Protein backbone atom coordinates (compact mmCIF):
# COMPACT_ATOMS: atom_id res chain seq x y z
CA UNK A 1 0.00 0.00 0.00
CA UNK A 2 2.83 2.36 0.89
CA UNK A 3 4.48 1.53 -2.41
CA UNK A 4 1.23 2.21 -4.21
CA UNK A 5 0.80 5.63 -2.61
CA UNK A 6 4.41 6.45 -3.34
CA UNK A 7 3.90 5.55 -6.99
CA UNK A 8 0.61 7.42 -7.10
CA UNK A 9 2.33 10.65 -6.09
CA UNK A 10 5.19 10.02 -8.48
CA UNK A 11 2.62 9.47 -11.21
CA UNK A 12 0.78 12.68 -10.35
CA UNK A 13 4.00 14.70 -10.44
CA UNK A 14 4.99 13.17 -13.74
CA UNK A 15 1.46 13.77 -15.00
CA UNK A 16 1.77 17.47 -14.18
CA UNK A 17 4.95 17.66 -16.23
CA UNK A 18 3.42 15.75 -19.13
CA UNK A 19 0.33 17.98 -19.11
CA UNK A 20 2.35 21.17 -19.36
CA UNK A 21 4.43 19.78 -22.20
CA UNK A 22 1.46 18.22 -24.00
CA UNK A 23 -0.73 21.33 -23.86
CA UNK A 24 1.78 23.28 -25.92
CA UNK A 25 1.85 20.56 -28.53
CA UNK A 26 -1.90 20.29 -28.68
CA UNK A 27 -2.28 24.09 -28.98
CA UNK A 28 0.17 24.15 -31.87
CA UNK A 29 -1.72 21.36 -33.54
CA UNK A 30 -5.02 23.10 -32.99
CA UNK A 31 -3.87 26.40 -34.45
CA UNK A 32 -1.41 25.39 -37.17
CA UNK A 33 -2.54 21.79 -37.75
CA UNK A 34 1.03 20.56 -37.65
CA UNK A 35 2.52 17.93 -35.37
CA UNK A 36 5.58 19.73 -34.07
CA UNK A 37 8.13 16.95 -33.85
CA UNK A 38 10.62 19.44 -32.42
CA UNK A 39 8.55 19.98 -29.28
CA UNK A 40 10.69 17.63 -27.21
CA UNK A 41 13.81 19.57 -28.07
CA UNK A 42 12.16 22.81 -26.92
CA UNK A 43 11.56 21.07 -23.60
CA UNK A 44 15.20 19.97 -23.56
CA UNK A 45 16.44 23.50 -24.32
CA UNK A 46 14.11 24.79 -21.61
CA UNK A 47 15.76 22.51 -19.08
CA UNK A 48 19.24 23.66 -20.11
CA UNK A 49 18.37 27.35 -20.10
CA UNK A 50 16.85 26.95 -16.63
CA UNK A 51 20.06 25.21 -15.58
CA UNK A 52 22.05 28.10 -17.06
CA UNK A 53 20.13 30.74 -15.09
CA UNK A 54 20.07 28.72 -11.87
CA UNK A 55 23.64 27.40 -11.76
CA UNK A 56 25.74 29.62 -14.02
CA UNK A 57 24.04 32.97 -13.39
CA UNK A 58 22.82 32.11 -9.93
CA UNK A 59 19.32 33.54 -9.79
CA UNK A 60 16.69 31.92 -7.54
CA UNK A 61 14.90 28.79 -8.77
CA UNK A 62 11.53 30.35 -9.59
CA UNK A 63 13.15 33.31 -11.35
CA UNK A 64 15.36 30.93 -13.32
CA UNK A 65 12.33 29.06 -14.62
CA UNK A 66 10.58 32.35 -15.41
CA UNK A 67 13.57 33.77 -17.30
CA UNK A 68 14.06 30.50 -19.17
CA UNK A 69 10.39 30.51 -20.14
CA UNK A 70 10.81 33.99 -21.62
CA UNK A 71 13.94 32.96 -23.54
CA UNK A 72 12.22 29.86 -24.88
CA UNK A 73 9.11 31.83 -25.82
CA UNK A 74 11.34 33.97 -28.02
CA UNK A 75 12.94 30.86 -29.52
CA UNK A 76 9.48 29.41 -30.10
CA UNK A 77 8.35 32.55 -31.94
CA UNK A 78 11.53 32.51 -34.03
CA UNK A 79 10.97 28.85 -34.85
CA UNK A 80 7.47 29.67 -36.07
CA UNK A 81 8.66 32.64 -38.12
CA UNK A 82 11.73 31.05 -39.65
CA UNK A 83 10.66 27.46 -40.15
CA UNK A 84 6.90 26.96 -40.04
CA UNK A 85 5.56 30.23 -41.39
CA UNK A 86 7.22 29.83 -44.81
CA UNK A 87 5.81 26.31 -44.96
CA UNK A 88 2.23 27.23 -44.06
CA UNK A 89 0.92 26.25 -47.50
CA UNK A 90 3.24 23.28 -48.07
CA UNK A 91 2.10 19.64 -47.94
CA UNK A 92 1.94 18.21 -44.45
CA UNK A 93 5.02 16.01 -44.87
CA UNK A 94 7.18 19.12 -45.30
CA UNK A 95 6.39 20.49 -41.82
CA UNK A 96 7.41 17.27 -40.23
CA UNK A 97 10.64 17.05 -42.19
CA UNK A 98 11.46 20.67 -41.31
CA UNK A 99 10.68 19.95 -37.66
CA UNK A 100 13.14 17.08 -37.79
CA UNK A 101 15.78 19.47 -39.11
CA UNK A 102 15.06 21.93 -36.29
CA UNK A 103 15.21 19.07 -33.80
CA UNK A 104 18.66 17.97 -34.97
CA UNK A 105 19.84 21.57 -34.86
CA UNK A 106 18.65 22.25 -31.30
CA UNK A 107 20.21 19.02 -30.08
CA UNK A 108 23.50 19.92 -31.68
CA UNK A 109 23.32 23.40 -30.12
CA UNK A 110 22.74 21.97 -26.65
CA UNK A 111 25.57 19.52 -27.15
CA UNK A 112 27.91 22.21 -28.42
CA UNK A 113 27.22 24.48 -25.44
CA UNK A 114 26.72 22.05 -22.58
CA UNK A 115 28.35 18.83 -23.82
CA UNK A 116 26.86 15.39 -24.27
CA UNK A 117 27.34 14.31 -20.65
CA UNK A 118 24.49 14.10 -18.22
CA UNK A 119 24.16 17.03 -15.86
CA UNK A 120 22.51 17.20 -12.50
CA UNK A 121 20.55 20.23 -11.40
CA UNK A 122 20.32 20.50 -7.64
CA UNK A 123 16.89 21.44 -6.42
CA UNK A 124 16.70 24.31 -3.96
CA UNK A 125 13.63 22.58 -2.59
CA UNK A 126 14.81 19.66 -0.53
CA UNK A 127 13.35 17.37 2.06
CA UNK A 128 10.25 15.28 2.00
CA UNK A 129 7.02 14.79 3.83
CA UNK A 130 5.41 11.56 4.96
CA UNK A 131 1.87 11.01 3.75
CA UNK A 132 0.16 7.74 4.69
CA UNK A 133 3.53 6.12 5.23
CA UNK A 134 4.96 7.17 1.88
CA UNK A 135 7.88 9.53 1.54
CA UNK A 136 6.90 12.30 -0.85
CA UNK A 137 9.61 14.79 -1.76
CA UNK A 138 8.65 18.46 -1.66
CA UNK A 139 9.86 18.83 -5.23
CA UNK A 140 7.10 16.51 -6.41
CA UNK A 141 4.50 18.39 -4.42
CA UNK A 142 5.77 21.64 -5.91
CA UNK A 143 5.46 20.13 -9.39
CA UNK A 144 1.83 19.12 -8.85
CA UNK A 145 0.88 22.46 -7.28
CA UNK A 146 2.66 24.52 -9.94
CA UNK A 147 1.13 22.46 -12.70
CA UNK A 148 -2.35 23.02 -11.32
CA UNK A 149 -1.75 26.77 -10.96
CA UNK A 150 -0.28 27.11 -14.46
CA UNK A 151 -3.08 25.06 -15.97
CA UNK A 152 -5.63 27.26 -14.17
CA UNK A 153 -3.99 30.44 -15.44
CA UNK A 154 -3.79 29.02 -18.94
CA UNK A 155 -7.46 28.08 -18.97
CA UNK A 156 -8.31 31.59 -17.79
CA UNK A 157 -6.05 33.07 -20.48
CA UNK A 158 -7.57 31.07 -23.31
CA UNK A 159 -11.18 31.30 -22.23
CA UNK A 160 -11.33 34.85 -20.82
CA UNK A 161 -8.58 37.09 -22.16
CA UNK A 162 -8.88 38.61 -25.60
CA UNK A 163 -5.52 37.28 -26.84
CA UNK A 164 -6.23 33.80 -25.58
CA UNK A 165 -9.64 33.80 -27.17
CA UNK A 166 -8.07 34.47 -30.55
CA UNK A 167 -6.25 31.14 -30.20
CA UNK A 168 -9.50 29.31 -29.73
CA UNK A 169 -11.13 31.28 -32.54
CA UNK A 170 -8.42 30.27 -34.99
CA UNK A 171 -8.67 26.66 -33.87
CA UNK A 172 -12.38 26.68 -34.54
CA UNK A 173 -12.44 28.48 -37.85
CA UNK A 174 -9.39 29.96 -39.51
CA UNK A 175 -11.20 31.76 -42.32
CA UNK A 176 -13.94 33.06 -40.06
CA UNK A 177 -11.42 34.47 -37.60
CA UNK A 178 -9.54 36.24 -40.38
CA UNK A 179 -12.82 37.80 -41.46
CA UNK A 180 -13.39 39.32 -38.05
CA UNK A 181 -9.87 40.73 -37.98
CA UNK A 182 -7.86 38.11 -36.12
CA UNK A 183 -4.42 37.67 -37.68
CA UNK A 184 -3.64 33.95 -38.01
CA UNK A 185 0.01 34.83 -38.34
CA UNK A 186 0.09 36.65 -35.00
CA UNK A 187 -1.86 33.89 -33.28
CA UNK A 188 0.58 31.30 -34.64
CA UNK A 189 3.45 33.23 -33.09
CA UNK A 190 1.60 33.59 -29.80
CA UNK A 191 0.84 29.87 -29.77
CA UNK A 192 4.42 28.85 -30.44
CA UNK A 193 5.72 31.23 -27.79
CA UNK A 194 3.21 29.97 -25.26
CA UNK A 195 3.90 26.32 -26.09
CA UNK A 196 7.65 26.76 -25.72
CA UNK A 197 7.21 28.60 -22.42
CA UNK A 198 4.94 25.86 -21.05
CA UNK A 199 7.41 23.16 -22.10
CA UNK A 200 10.13 25.14 -20.27
CA UNK A 201 8.11 25.31 -17.07
CA UNK A 202 7.61 21.55 -17.32
CA UNK A 203 11.31 20.97 -17.93
CA UNK A 204 12.41 23.36 -15.18
CA UNK A 205 10.14 21.61 -12.68
CA UNK A 206 11.25 18.09 -13.48
CA UNK A 207 14.95 18.83 -14.06
CA UNK A 208 15.95 18.44 -10.38
CA UNK A 209 14.44 14.92 -10.36
CA UNK A 210 15.83 13.76 -13.69
CA UNK A 211 19.20 14.32 -15.29
CA UNK A 212 19.83 16.76 -18.10
CA UNK A 213 21.07 15.52 -21.46
CA UNK A 214 20.75 16.76 -25.05
CA UNK A 215 18.68 13.68 -25.86
CA UNK A 216 16.27 14.09 -22.91
CA UNK A 217 13.57 15.47 -25.21
CA UNK A 218 13.41 12.49 -27.55
CA UNK A 219 11.42 10.15 -25.36
CA UNK A 220 9.27 13.00 -24.07
CA UNK A 221 8.48 14.07 -27.59
CA UNK A 222 6.99 10.68 -28.36
CA UNK A 223 5.16 10.52 -25.05
CA UNK A 224 3.45 13.87 -25.49
CA UNK A 225 2.31 12.69 -28.90
CA UNK A 226 0.80 9.64 -27.21
CA UNK A 227 -0.94 11.97 -24.77
CA UNK A 228 -2.47 14.27 -27.32
CA UNK A 229 -3.57 11.37 -29.48
CA UNK A 230 -5.18 9.84 -26.43
CA UNK A 231 -6.86 13.12 -25.60
CA UNK A 232 -7.60 14.15 -29.18
CA UNK A 233 -5.30 16.38 -31.22
CA UNK A 234 -6.07 20.01 -30.46
CA UNK A 235 -8.10 19.36 -27.32
CA UNK A 236 -7.03 21.12 -24.11
CA UNK A 237 -8.97 19.05 -21.54
CA UNK A 238 -7.93 15.97 -23.50
CA UNK A 239 -4.28 16.84 -23.02
CA UNK A 240 -4.77 17.22 -19.27
CA UNK A 241 -6.66 13.95 -18.85
CA UNK A 242 -4.29 12.19 -21.23
CA UNK A 243 -1.22 13.53 -19.43
CA UNK A 244 -2.24 12.22 -16.03
CA UNK A 245 -3.54 8.94 -17.46
CA UNK A 246 -0.36 8.19 -19.33
CA UNK A 247 1.89 9.20 -16.42
CA UNK A 248 0.02 6.98 -13.97
CA UNK A 249 -0.02 4.09 -16.44
CA UNK A 250 3.69 4.52 -16.99
CA UNK A 251 4.65 4.68 -13.32
CA UNK A 252 2.41 1.77 -12.38
CA UNK A 253 3.62 -0.41 -15.26
CA UNK A 254 7.25 0.19 -14.51
CA UNK A 255 6.67 -0.58 -10.82
CA UNK A 256 4.50 -3.64 -11.17
CA UNK A 257 5.56 -5.06 -14.56
CA UNK A 258 9.02 -3.94 -15.72
CA UNK A 259 10.95 -0.78 -16.46
CA UNK A 260 11.04 -1.53 -20.20
CA UNK A 261 7.29 -2.03 -20.26
CA UNK A 262 6.84 1.32 -18.54
CA UNK A 263 9.01 2.95 -21.12
CA UNK A 264 7.13 1.34 -23.97
CA UNK A 265 3.59 1.87 -22.74
CA UNK A 266 3.25 5.28 -24.38
CA UNK A 267 3.92 3.79 -27.78
CA UNK A 268 1.60 0.89 -27.19
CA UNK A 269 -1.05 3.49 -26.31
CA UNK A 270 -0.48 5.33 -29.62
CA UNK A 271 -0.63 2.13 -31.64
CA UNK A 272 -3.70 0.76 -29.86
CA UNK A 273 -5.67 3.99 -29.90
CA UNK A 274 -4.96 4.69 -33.56
CA UNK A 275 -5.57 1.08 -34.53
CA UNK A 276 -9.04 1.27 -33.02
CA UNK A 277 -9.84 4.88 -33.88
CA UNK A 278 -7.61 6.18 -36.70
CA UNK A 279 -8.35 9.81 -35.82
CA UNK A 280 -7.66 9.44 -32.10
CA UNK A 281 -10.06 9.29 -29.20
CA UNK A 282 -12.36 12.30 -28.76
CA UNK A 283 -11.23 13.69 -32.12
CA UNK A 284 -13.10 16.76 -33.18
CA UNK A 285 -14.21 17.34 -36.73
CA UNK A 286 -11.10 17.99 -38.77
CA UNK A 287 -10.95 21.45 -40.25
CA UNK A 288 -9.86 21.44 -43.89
Amino acid sequence: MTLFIQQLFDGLALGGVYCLAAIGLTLIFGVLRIPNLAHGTLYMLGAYVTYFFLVTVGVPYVAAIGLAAVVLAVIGVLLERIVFHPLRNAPHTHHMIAAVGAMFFFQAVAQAIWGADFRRMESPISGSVTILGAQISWQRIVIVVTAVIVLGLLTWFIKRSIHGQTIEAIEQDRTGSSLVGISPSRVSMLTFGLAAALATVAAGLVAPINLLAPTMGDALSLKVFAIIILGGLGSLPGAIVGGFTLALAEVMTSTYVSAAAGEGIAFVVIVLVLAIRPTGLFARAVQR
Partner: protein
Amino acid sequence: MTTTTFSPQRLGTLLVALALLLAPLTLGGEEYVLRVLTVGATYAIAVYGMNLILGLTGQLSLAHGGFFGIGVYIVGLLTTDYDWAFWPSFLVAVLVTGLGGFVAGIVALRTREEYFAIFTMAMGFIIFLVISRWESVTHAHSGVSGVKFPEGFGLFDFSEPVVMYYLVLLFLLGAGYVTHAVRRSGIGRTLVAIRTSEDLARSIGVNVGLNKQLAFAASTTFAGVAGGLFAAVQGFVGPSAASLDLTFEMLMFILVGGLGTVLGPVVGTFLVLFLFEFFQDFEAYRFLVLGPIIVVLVIFAPRGIVGYLNAFVGKLRSRAAGAGNGSGGPPEHRSSDTATDVKETL
Protein backbone atom coordinates in the same frame (compact mmCIF):
# COMPACT_ATOMS: atom_id res chain seq x y z
CA MET B 1 11.55 8.86 -73.93
CA THR B 2 11.50 6.20 -76.61
CA THR B 3 12.39 8.50 -79.49
CA THR B 4 15.53 10.12 -78.12
CA THR B 5 18.38 7.84 -77.18
CA PHE B 6 20.36 10.63 -75.49
CA SER B 7 17.83 12.21 -73.21
CA PRO B 8 19.57 14.04 -70.36
CA GLN B 9 17.84 11.80 -67.82
CA ARG B 10 19.28 8.71 -69.47
CA LEU B 11 22.68 10.32 -69.65
CA GLY B 12 22.45 11.17 -65.94
CA THR B 13 21.43 7.63 -65.03
CA LEU B 14 24.25 6.25 -67.10
CA LEU B 15 26.78 8.57 -65.47
CA VAL B 16 25.69 7.69 -61.94
CA ALA B 17 25.71 3.97 -62.77
CA LEU B 18 29.16 4.23 -64.34
CA ALA B 19 30.53 6.21 -61.41
CA LEU B 20 29.27 3.55 -58.99
CA LEU B 21 30.58 0.69 -61.13
CA LEU B 22 34.02 2.18 -61.60
CA ALA B 23 34.42 3.59 -58.10
CA PRO B 24 36.36 0.61 -56.66
CA LEU B 25 38.81 0.68 -59.55
CA THR B 26 39.70 4.32 -59.01
CA LEU B 27 40.09 3.92 -55.27
CA GLY B 28 43.08 1.61 -55.64
CA GLY B 29 42.78 -0.28 -52.36
CA GLU B 30 41.34 2.51 -50.20
CA GLU B 31 39.54 0.04 -47.93
CA TYR B 32 37.87 2.67 -45.79
CA VAL B 33 36.35 4.63 -48.67
CA LEU B 34 35.14 1.40 -50.26
CA ARG B 35 33.48 0.47 -46.98
CA VAL B 36 31.75 3.83 -46.75
CA LEU B 37 30.53 3.36 -50.32
CA THR B 38 29.24 -0.13 -49.60
CA VAL B 39 27.39 0.96 -46.46
CA GLY B 40 26.07 3.97 -48.38
CA ALA B 41 24.77 1.67 -51.09
CA THR B 42 22.84 -0.41 -48.53
CA TYR B 43 21.32 2.77 -47.10
CA ALA B 44 20.43 3.89 -50.60
CA ILE B 45 18.42 0.67 -51.12
CA ALA B 46 16.41 1.46 -48.00
CA VAL B 47 16.01 5.05 -49.18
CA TYR B 48 14.50 3.71 -52.41
CA GLY B 49 11.92 2.04 -50.20
CA MET B 50 11.18 5.33 -48.51
CA ASN B 51 10.92 6.91 -51.93
CA LEU B 52 8.09 4.53 -52.83
CA ILE B 53 5.98 5.35 -49.80
CA LEU B 54 6.91 9.00 -49.25
CA GLY B 55 8.08 10.20 -52.64
CA LEU B 56 5.49 8.53 -54.81
CA THR B 57 2.59 7.90 -52.45
CA GLY B 58 3.07 10.92 -50.17
CA GLN B 59 2.87 9.03 -46.86
CA LEU B 60 5.54 9.87 -44.28
CA SER B 61 6.48 6.52 -42.73
CA LEU B 62 8.73 6.96 -39.72
CA ALA B 63 8.93 3.20 -39.09
CA HIS B 64 11.37 2.77 -41.95
CA GLY B 65 14.47 2.57 -39.74
CA GLY B 66 12.61 0.02 -37.63
CA PHE B 67 11.99 -2.26 -40.60
CA PHE B 68 15.60 -1.80 -41.66
CA GLY B 69 16.53 -2.92 -38.15
CA ILE B 70 14.29 -5.99 -38.41
CA GLY B 71 16.14 -6.97 -41.60
CA VAL B 72 19.48 -6.36 -39.91
CA TYR B 73 18.62 -8.40 -36.84
CA ILE B 74 17.00 -11.33 -38.65
CA VAL B 75 20.11 -11.85 -40.75
CA GLY B 76 22.39 -11.02 -37.83
CA LEU B 77 20.77 -13.41 -35.35
CA LEU B 78 20.02 -16.27 -37.73
CA THR B 79 23.55 -16.43 -39.09
CA THR B 80 25.20 -16.28 -35.66
CA ASP B 81 23.05 -17.72 -32.85
CA TYR B 82 21.21 -20.18 -35.08
CA ASP B 83 24.07 -20.82 -37.47
CA TRP B 84 21.99 -20.47 -40.64
CA ALA B 85 23.62 -19.70 -43.96
CA PHE B 86 23.34 -16.13 -45.25
CA TRP B 87 21.00 -16.58 -48.19
CA PRO B 88 18.19 -18.43 -46.38
CA SER B 89 18.34 -15.89 -43.52
CA PHE B 90 18.30 -13.09 -46.04
CA LEU B 91 15.23 -14.60 -47.68
CA VAL B 92 13.53 -14.85 -44.29
CA ALA B 93 14.43 -11.21 -43.57
CA VAL B 94 12.94 -10.05 -46.87
CA LEU B 95 9.78 -12.12 -46.41
CA VAL B 96 9.27 -11.04 -42.81
CA THR B 97 9.73 -7.33 -43.55
CA GLY B 98 7.55 -7.56 -46.65
CA LEU B 99 4.73 -9.50 -45.02
CA GLY B 100 5.19 -7.56 -41.79
CA GLY B 101 4.84 -4.34 -43.73
CA PHE B 102 1.70 -5.58 -45.44
CA VAL B 103 0.11 -6.66 -42.17
CA ALA B 104 1.23 -3.51 -40.31
CA GLY B 105 -0.12 -1.51 -43.23
CA ILE B 106 -3.62 -2.89 -42.65
CA VAL B 107 -3.72 -1.05 -39.35
CA ALA B 108 -1.29 1.80 -40.01
CA LEU B 109 -2.89 2.94 -43.23
CA ARG B 110 -6.28 3.35 -41.63
CA THR B 111 -4.75 6.52 -40.26
CA ARG B 112 -4.07 9.48 -42.50
CA GLU B 113 -1.51 12.23 -42.86
CA GLU B 114 -0.17 13.39 -39.49
CA TYR B 115 -1.71 10.44 -37.71
CA PHE B 116 0.05 8.06 -40.06
CA ALA B 117 3.39 9.71 -39.33
CA ILE B 118 2.83 9.57 -35.58
CA PHE B 119 1.56 6.01 -35.75
CA THR B 120 4.55 4.80 -37.71
CA MET B 121 6.88 6.75 -35.43
CA ALA B 122 5.44 4.85 -32.47
CA MET B 123 5.75 1.59 -34.40
CA GLY B 124 9.37 2.35 -35.20
CA PHE B 125 10.08 3.16 -31.59
CA ILE B 126 8.46 -0.06 -30.37
CA ILE B 127 10.64 -2.05 -32.79
CA PHE B 128 13.68 -0.19 -31.46
CA LEU B 129 12.66 -0.83 -27.85
CA VAL B 130 12.17 -4.54 -28.49
CA ILE B 131 15.53 -4.82 -30.19
CA SER B 132 17.41 -2.79 -27.61
CA ARG B 133 15.78 -4.39 -24.54
CA TRP B 134 15.03 -8.03 -25.34
CA GLU B 135 18.37 -9.12 -24.05
CA SER B 136 17.87 -12.92 -24.16
CA VAL B 137 17.24 -12.84 -27.90
CA THR B 138 18.86 -9.73 -29.35
CA HIS B 139 21.72 -9.31 -26.82
CA ALA B 140 20.48 -5.73 -26.34
CA HIS B 141 23.32 -3.23 -26.27
CA SER B 142 26.13 -5.72 -26.69
CA GLY B 143 24.88 -6.25 -30.25
CA VAL B 144 25.51 -9.13 -32.62
CA SER B 145 28.96 -9.83 -33.95
CA GLY B 146 30.33 -12.27 -36.50
CA VAL B 147 27.51 -11.99 -39.03
CA LYS B 148 28.29 -14.33 -41.93
CA PHE B 149 29.18 -13.13 -45.40
CA PRO B 150 26.94 -14.36 -48.21
CA GLU B 151 27.95 -17.73 -49.62
CA GLY B 152 29.53 -17.47 -53.04
CA PHE B 153 29.14 -21.17 -53.96
CA GLY B 154 32.72 -21.27 -55.13
CA LEU B 155 32.10 -18.57 -57.72
CA PHE B 156 32.52 -15.46 -55.62
CA ASP B 157 34.29 -14.64 -52.41
CA PHE B 158 32.08 -12.14 -50.61
CA SER B 159 34.52 -11.65 -47.78
CA GLU B 160 36.46 -9.65 -50.35
CA PRO B 161 35.20 -6.02 -49.89
CA VAL B 162 35.13 -5.29 -53.62
CA VAL B 163 33.02 -8.35 -54.39
CA MET B 164 30.63 -7.48 -51.57
CA TYR B 165 30.41 -3.96 -52.95
CA TYR B 166 29.33 -5.25 -56.33
CA LEU B 167 26.74 -7.52 -54.75
CA VAL B 168 25.19 -4.58 -52.89
CA LEU B 169 25.42 -2.52 -56.06
CA LEU B 170 23.48 -5.20 -57.93
CA PHE B 171 20.65 -4.90 -55.43
CA LEU B 172 20.88 -1.11 -55.60
CA LEU B 173 20.53 -1.19 -59.38
CA GLY B 174 17.57 -3.51 -58.92
CA ALA B 175 15.96 -1.06 -56.50
CA GLY B 176 16.55 1.79 -58.94
CA TYR B 177 15.11 -0.21 -61.80
CA VAL B 178 12.00 -1.16 -59.80
CA THR B 179 11.45 2.51 -58.99
CA HIS B 180 11.85 3.42 -62.65
CA ALA B 181 9.46 0.67 -63.73
CA VAL B 182 6.89 1.60 -61.10
CA ARG B 183 7.03 5.25 -62.08
CA ARG B 184 6.38 4.39 -65.70
CA SER B 185 3.61 1.93 -64.98
CA GLY B 186 -0.04 2.50 -64.20
CA ILE B 187 0.68 1.70 -60.54
CA GLY B 188 3.08 4.62 -60.38
CA ARG B 189 0.48 6.98 -61.75
CA THR B 190 -2.04 5.61 -59.30
CA LEU B 191 0.35 6.28 -56.41
CA VAL B 192 1.05 9.81 -57.62
CA ALA B 193 -2.69 10.36 -57.86
CA ILE B 194 -3.01 9.28 -54.23
CA ARG B 195 -0.19 11.63 -53.27
CA THR B 196 -1.88 14.54 -55.03
CA SER B 197 -5.25 13.95 -53.42
CA GLU B 198 -6.58 10.84 -51.78
CA ASP B 199 -10.17 11.94 -52.05
CA LEU B 200 -9.83 12.81 -55.70
CA ALA B 201 -8.11 9.49 -56.44
CA ARG B 202 -10.89 7.62 -54.69
CA SER B 203 -13.53 9.52 -56.61
CA ILE B 204 -12.11 8.37 -59.93
CA GLY B 205 -12.19 4.76 -58.84
CA VAL B 206 -8.69 4.18 -57.46
CA ASN B 207 -8.53 1.59 -54.71
CA VAL B 208 -6.64 3.89 -52.36
CA GLY B 209 -6.38 1.48 -49.45
CA LEU B 210 -4.97 -1.45 -51.41
CA ASN B 211 -2.52 0.66 -53.39
CA LYS B 212 -1.21 2.41 -50.31
CA GLN B 213 -0.81 -0.93 -48.62
CA LEU B 214 1.12 -2.40 -51.53
CA ALA B 215 3.36 0.67 -51.63
CA PHE B 216 3.97 0.38 -47.90
CA ALA B 217 4.75 -3.34 -48.13
CA ALA B 218 7.13 -2.67 -51.02
CA SER B 219 8.88 0.04 -49.01
CA THR B 220 9.36 -2.20 -45.98
CA THR B 221 10.63 -5.00 -48.26
CA PHE B 222 13.28 -2.63 -49.59
CA ALA B 223 14.16 -1.76 -46.00
CA GLY B 224 14.47 -5.48 -45.22
CA VAL B 225 16.71 -6.14 -48.22
CA ALA B 226 18.88 -3.18 -47.24
CA GLY B 227 18.99 -4.29 -43.61
CA GLY B 228 19.98 -7.84 -44.50
CA LEU B 229 22.83 -6.66 -46.68
CA PHE B 230 23.86 -4.07 -44.10
CA ALA B 231 24.27 -6.81 -41.47
CA ALA B 232 26.57 -8.78 -43.77
CA VAL B 233 28.57 -5.71 -44.78
CA GLN B 234 29.07 -4.55 -41.20
CA GLY B 235 29.65 -7.94 -39.59
CA PHE B 236 28.76 -6.32 -36.27
CA VAL B 237 25.39 -4.73 -35.59
CA GLY B 238 23.85 -2.91 -32.64
CA PRO B 239 20.42 -1.48 -31.76
CA SER B 240 21.33 1.83 -33.43
CA ALA B 241 20.62 0.05 -36.75
CA ALA B 242 16.91 0.26 -35.84
CA SER B 243 16.81 3.73 -34.29
CA LEU B 244 14.55 6.62 -35.13
CA ASP B 245 17.63 8.71 -35.90
CA LEU B 246 18.36 6.38 -38.79
CA THR B 247 14.88 7.04 -40.17
CA PHE B 248 15.51 10.76 -39.90
CA GLU B 249 18.84 10.43 -41.65
CA MET B 250 17.22 8.52 -44.50
CA LEU B 251 14.62 11.25 -44.67
CA MET B 252 17.40 13.74 -45.17
CA PHE B 253 19.05 11.60 -47.87
CA ILE B 254 15.90 11.43 -49.93
CA LEU B 255 15.07 15.07 -49.42
CA VAL B 256 18.45 16.18 -50.68
CA GLY B 257 18.29 13.81 -53.64
CA GLY B 258 14.72 14.44 -54.66
CA LEU B 259 11.42 12.93 -53.54
CA GLY B 260 9.75 10.69 -56.09
CA THR B 261 12.63 10.68 -58.57
CA VAL B 262 14.53 7.63 -59.83
CA LEU B 263 18.04 8.92 -59.18
CA GLY B 264 17.24 10.98 -56.08
CA PRO B 265 17.86 8.29 -53.45
CA VAL B 266 21.31 7.38 -54.81
CA VAL B 267 22.44 10.93 -55.35
CA GLY B 268 21.09 12.13 -52.00
CA THR B 269 22.48 9.23 -49.98
CA PHE B 270 25.99 9.43 -51.37
CA LEU B 271 26.12 13.21 -51.26
CA VAL B 272 24.98 13.46 -47.64
CA LEU B 273 27.19 10.57 -46.56
CA PHE B 274 30.08 12.35 -48.21
CA LEU B 275 29.17 15.46 -46.19
CA PHE B 276 28.98 13.33 -43.03
CA GLU B 277 32.49 12.06 -43.69
CA PHE B 278 33.64 15.58 -44.40
CA PHE B 279 32.25 16.79 -41.05
CA GLN B 280 33.41 13.67 -39.27
CA ASP B 281 35.83 15.53 -37.04
CA PHE B 282 32.91 17.45 -35.62
CA GLU B 283 30.86 14.27 -35.05
CA ALA B 284 27.83 15.44 -33.13
CA TYR B 285 28.15 19.05 -34.20
CA ARG B 286 27.55 18.20 -37.83
CA PHE B 287 23.86 18.80 -37.25
CA LEU B 288 24.61 22.42 -36.41
CA VAL B 289 25.05 22.74 -40.16
CA LEU B 290 22.96 19.86 -41.45
CA GLY B 291 19.85 20.68 -39.37
CA PRO B 292 19.43 24.12 -40.95
CA ILE B 293 20.25 22.60 -44.34
CA ILE B 294 17.25 20.26 -43.99
CA VAL B 295 15.03 23.22 -43.09
CA VAL B 296 16.33 25.38 -45.92
CA LEU B 297 15.93 22.54 -48.41
CA VAL B 298 12.38 21.79 -47.43
CA ILE B 299 11.42 25.46 -47.59
CA PHE B 300 13.26 26.53 -50.73
CA ALA B 301 14.02 23.33 -52.60
CA PRO B 302 11.51 20.65 -51.63
CA ARG B 303 12.06 18.83 -54.90
CA GLY B 304 15.70 18.00 -54.21
CA ILE B 305 18.64 18.04 -56.57
CA VAL B 306 17.36 15.47 -59.04
CA GLY B 307 13.87 16.93 -58.93
CA TYR B 308 15.24 20.32 -59.95
CA LEU B 309 17.42 18.88 -62.67
CA ASN B 310 14.39 17.05 -64.05
CA ALA B 311 12.31 20.21 -63.99
CA PHE B 312 15.12 22.12 -65.66
CA VAL B 313 15.47 19.53 -68.41
CA GLY B 314 11.71 19.45 -68.87
CA LYS B 315 11.62 23.22 -69.23
CA LEU B 316 14.43 23.27 -71.77
CA ARG B 317 12.72 20.57 -73.74
CA SER B 318 9.28 22.13 -73.74
CA ARG B 319 10.88 25.36 -74.88
CA ALA B 320 12.61 23.54 -77.73
CA ALA B 321 9.42 21.67 -78.54
CA GLY B 322 7.39 24.87 -78.31
CA ALA B 323 9.59 26.33 -81.04
CA GLY B 324 9.01 23.20 -83.12
CA ASN B 325 5.76 21.28 -83.24
CA GLY B 326 4.78 21.90 -79.64
CA SER B 327 4.54 18.24 -78.65
CA GLY B 328 6.43 18.80 -75.38
CA GLY B 329 8.74 16.65 -73.30
CA PRO B 330 8.36 13.11 -72.06
CA PRO B 331 4.88 12.67 -70.67
CA GLU B 332 5.97 10.86 -67.51
CA HIS B 333 8.15 13.70 -66.26
CA ARG B 334 5.61 16.20 -67.20
CA SER B 335 2.84 14.45 -65.34
CA SER B 336 4.87 13.97 -62.20
CA ASP B 337 6.11 17.53 -62.24
CA THR B 338 2.63 18.93 -62.52
CA ALA B 339 1.69 16.67 -59.67
CA THR B 340 4.39 18.19 -57.48
CA ASP B 341 3.39 21.64 -58.62
CA VAL B 342 -0.20 21.03 -57.69
CA LYS B 343 0.94 19.73 -54.36
CA GLU B 344 3.15 22.68 -53.63
CA THR B 345 0.47 25.16 -54.37
CA LEU B 346 -2.07 23.34 -52.22
